[in-house]
């Protein structure tokens, strides 16, 4: 069992192209998550009671499911409800919703970690509840939100590997079919691991820098 460098470089271009798809899917679902998460978090903090419990139930539901089940639901069950999406957009939707739910929890716990005093002070000064949350609490919470949020991005990238089961041509799917086509196992697995390490490592590095920059 020796490492075949010729095979390594022969298949590398295909996997590099596939990592473009991984990046696209992850970035698009990050975008969706960034739109949905504040809506979820704020309606859980500020909404009327009924909306608040509905949003909380939705968040707990998604957190209690493996992402693979959410992906399968979007791919197999949504068409029955009349929403037919390609594998790619189905993946963006599933990962976006899952990412949004976790990000909403980060936003909520960051706001709650500020302590009651901030909210009480703002209310005593005559701010309305929504003004207090948006203008007083949220800006303070932001420095506690950003670092874990970049970490969530790394999780989104890892989760995008699951989209191989609905045949999105990202790193894992392309690598897997290359392995079955060529029986070159180790070289291709090493490439897949390295590509993920580079992408996720970069994101984690940025996250650490952000954490240091914001805490100082």
């Amino acid at each position: 069992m020796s490492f075949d460098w010729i095979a390594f470089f022969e298949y590398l271009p295909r996997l590099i192209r596939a990592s473009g798809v991984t990046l696209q899917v992850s970035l698009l679902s990050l975008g969706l998550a960034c739109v949905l998460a504040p809506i979820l978090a704020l309606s859980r903090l500020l909404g009327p009671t009924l909306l608040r419990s509905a949003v909380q139930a939705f968040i707990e539901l998604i957190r209690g499911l493996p992402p693979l089940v959410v992906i399968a639901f979007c791919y197999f069950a949504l068409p029955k409800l009349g929403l037919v999406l390609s594998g790619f957009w189905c993946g963006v939707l599933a990962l976006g919703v899952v990412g949004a739910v976790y990000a909403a929890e980060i936003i909520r716990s960051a706001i709650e970690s500020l302590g009651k005093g901030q909210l009480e002070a703002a209310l005593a000064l005559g701010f309305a509840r929504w003004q207090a949350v948006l203008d007083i609490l949220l800006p303070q919470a932001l420095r506690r939100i950003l670092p874990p949020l970049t970490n969530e991005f790394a999780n989104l990238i890892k989760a995008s590997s699951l989209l191989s089961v609905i045949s999105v041509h990202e790193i894992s799917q392309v690598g897997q079919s290359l392995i079955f086509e060529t029986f070159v196992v180790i070289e291709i697995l090493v490439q897949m691991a390295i590509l993920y390490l580079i992408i996720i490592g970069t994101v984690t590095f940025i996250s650490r820098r952000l954490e240091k920059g914001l805490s100082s």
Partner: protein
Amino acid sequence: MDPFYMAQVLVRLLPPLGLTMLLSLTALVIATPLGLVLGAWRAELSDQQPAARLIDTWVLIVRGTPILIQIFVFYFILPKLGLQTPLFVMGVGALVLNSAGYQIEIGRAAVQSVAKGQWEAALALGFDRRASLLQFILPQAARRMVGPVMNELSQLIKASSVLSVITLFELHKAAEAISSANLRFSEVIVVEGILYFVFIFGISLIARVFERRLSSAGGLADAGSFAR
């Protein structure tokens, strides 16, 4: 949605659910002592020592690649080495490799989070470093590990669903097989989702209670993560 059919599916999904629980629990039982001990040890090592480098590399690779790739390593490489391994062992192996990597961080963070004064007090009382760690620091750190380790079980249940890709017949694979055999996807996914939800949500509720009772206040509550 046909309730009668869903009840049938539920009954058929119970044995695979048992396999999911068995996989996750076995992995937890092996990975927890391994990860926590290595983590506590790592907290005591300086960055340059070879053992520290080795542990850091493990953590880096496990956290820097999707669990799917780690599962592929077991699935494709073990047979190449000439080892006939049952799927269950491969699955547990991948979960242990992964979970221990995350639990090293739990153990290390817990030890490092014990206030410096505790170390200083123990050393001032004449205990050596080893005795201080074992008798003063670890008991305090252990309280902070309980919540995250319980959470780890629900993370493992979620992660075990990925073992469906190597045709290990756990809950997700079984649901997939039933739904594609009968071409009725929605009902099966709903039943599967309910089963996963009950266990994962239940366990994370218990973990939250432990976390609130045992760890001293402060810091962000761990929101968990969705992908490994």
